[in-house]
């Protein structure tokens, strides 16, 4: 019976229109950023969560529109005179709206699957709680919106709620996070744990995941918030309103002390399964991380070509295997975590995945990156070695130093060209010995020696 009432309520209310609108907005957001999650399940779940920045304000507005229904049709007084409790009338529509919102969220998530399923190497279980929290957040927003629309049944309630919610979800976390810096842009206090009460994640790097304990606490808080919305929707009288607010307060009071500080980047942990190596053993071993397993076939060719090239020029000391680094831009893995790395392994920078789920790096660019990586190691010093590396790579390939597409000072370009000319003027045996020694110095973190070997007479 309840199911039938719910179906009729949903069909004859604005719910289908709201759901359609939300699906269109969610789909547009998901389909314009496929490069952000292609090939990785965790990233798909995270990107679906980031659409909440738009979907939650709209779910609130939709709820407010639904909540205003009785007043709009001028039947609130009529229904107020019936002896049945208010919640009996409000629950079917609220349940139907919640069901619609969960469907919308799952559809948004499912839309990304064609970009993920064909190329994703592994499915982390934490994807499920991350997604569940998102669905719960939409339900909480929808029910709170219905309560607000019932309390203030005006046309402007819905858009005003949406704008306020959007500001709270996007600008407030940003503002709180920025206020943690001092005037020299040094982070002096970590982001408060309460930032995690907002369910929209901005981004997460490929090797991390949100731990399920954090997702569980977020789910607890959002469930409490949804309960408050539902109770407010059915509340008649001041005492009922006060009681209705209680779950949200209790939920926040329990969740905030248990949540980690530092916002989403602080709560994220390394996913050990994502950084495991997946290798191709037909020939010299080539490995990439499990998170980027789809890229392995594209890496193998250029990697083996590079190994052969190095071996031809520097016989005897060339690396014999290639592996992907687990160091992303924000230092996901601290350098001591993968320091055991003999000189026989060439470690290249973690790759980025393109729009289709496969690499957006061309084989030539990949070869260049691999050649560059042969001279690079994470050292204590932050001293830049790109000039020396460019000279060494140019010597290997027999071309000109490639200083990248960025603007390089003319004197640096001149310096690299001069170094290469002088290097090539030496007898070929001497050249090889020098470059070999330079490589050993670079891998041994002797940066000064690396430079002095390549920039012969120059300062």
């Amino acid at each position, binding site marked *: 019976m309840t199911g039938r009432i719910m179906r009729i309520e949903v069909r004859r209310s604005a719910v289908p229109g709201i759901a359609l*609108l939300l699906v269109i*907005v969610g789909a*547009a957001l998901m389909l314009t950023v496929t490069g952000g999650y292609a090939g990785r399940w965790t990233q798909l779940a995270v990107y679906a969560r980031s659409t909440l*920045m*738009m979907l939650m*304000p*709209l779910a609130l*507005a939709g709820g407010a529109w639904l909540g205003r229904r009785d*007043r*709009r*049709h*001028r039947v609130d007084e009529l229904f107020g005179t019936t002896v049945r409790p208010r919640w009996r009338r409000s629950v079917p529509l609220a349940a139907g709206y919640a069901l619609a919102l969960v469907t919308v969220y799952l559809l948004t998530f499912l839309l990304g699957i064609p970009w993920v399923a064909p190329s994703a190497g592994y499915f982390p279980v934490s994807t499920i709680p991350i997604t569940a929290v998102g669905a719960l957040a939409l339900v909480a927003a929808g029910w709170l919106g219905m309560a607000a629309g019932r309390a203030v*049944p*005006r*046309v*402007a309630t*819905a*858009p*005003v709620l*949406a*704008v306020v919610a*959007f*500001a709270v979800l*996007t*600008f407030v976390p*940003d*503002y709180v996070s920025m206020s943690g810096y001092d005037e020299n842009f040094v982070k002096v206090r970590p982001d408060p744990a309460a930032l995690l009460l907002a369910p929209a994640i*901005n981004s997460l790097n490929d090797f991390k995941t949100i731990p399920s304990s954090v997702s569980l606490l977020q789910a607890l808080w959002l469930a409490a918030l949804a309960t408050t919305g539902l109770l407010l929707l059915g509340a008649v009288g001041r005492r009922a309103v006060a009681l209705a607010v209680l779950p949200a307060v209790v939920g926040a009071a329990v969740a905030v002390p248990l949540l980690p500080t530092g916002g989403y980047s602080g709560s994220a942990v390394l996913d050990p399964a994502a950084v495991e190596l997946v290798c191709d053993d037909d020939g010299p071993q080539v490995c990439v991380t499990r998170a980027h397993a789809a890229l392995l076939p594209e890496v193998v060719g250029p990697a083996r070509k590079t190994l052969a090239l190095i071996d031809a020029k520097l016989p005897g000391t060339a690396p014999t295997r290639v592996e992907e680094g687990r160091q992303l831009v924000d230092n996901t893995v601290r350098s001591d975590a993968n320091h055991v790395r003999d000189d026989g392994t060439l470690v290249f920078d973690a790759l980025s995945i393109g729009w289709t789920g496969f690499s957006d790096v061309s084989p030539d660019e990949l070869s260049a990156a691999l050649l560059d990586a042969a001279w690079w190691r994470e050292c204590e010093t932050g001293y830049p070695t790109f000039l020396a590396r460019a000279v060494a790579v140019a010597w290997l390939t027999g071309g000109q130093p490639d200083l990248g597409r960025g603007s390089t000072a003319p004197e640096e370009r001149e310096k690299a060209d001069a170094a290469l000319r002088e290097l090539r003027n030496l007898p070929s045996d001497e050249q090889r010995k020098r470059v070999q020694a330079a490589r050993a110095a670079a891998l041994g973190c002797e940066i000064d020696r690396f430079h002095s070997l390549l920039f012969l007479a120059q300062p």
Partner: protein
Amino acid sequence: MRWLRLYLRARRVPLALAGTVCAIGSLWASWPHFSDGQTVNARVVSAAALIAAVAVGTTLGGADDALDHTASVNWPARRAGHVLAAAAAVVALLLVSTLTDVRFEPLGVVARNTAGLLGLTALGAALLGAALSWIAPLIWTLVALLPWLGPSDQVRWQIAAWLVQPAGTTAATACATLLAVVGLVAYALRGCPRRPAAETAPDR
């Protein structure tokens, strides 16, 4: 004068005006707390224009469409006049801030965003009715305000986030002009769709 006064009252213009002034005023007053810059940025200009567009949207329909249509007056001209006057009022309201330290600037962005959003609102009113006219401007503004969208070189992003492009961006200006013209023409010629009087009655 009497007609004008009755018309404004029937369209609930005083309430919309009061709401807009309060909302934009509080935005203006709170801005110095969030930034050291004195010029309000394109995002806040967009938010202010959105608030104004929502308020103007509620005034685009009367209490009873069917009754309105019985009046033998030149409705298209009056509807166009309503939208144009509203646009002028909103721009003027935002420009008043240039007398103070916290300014809604530059004029190009203020005029473009107001015109585009009001056009979108008018278009929404012509298609869905005044009560739902806020949907399209709200969604487009929120999309443009997403943290990862901003000034861009690519035309498709310039159109998707036309609200936050710098003044003089051709694609953004063209997009806003198109919205303004289409919205104005559609609303002036067609007006709001006729709905049962029970649904369009004013809020009490």
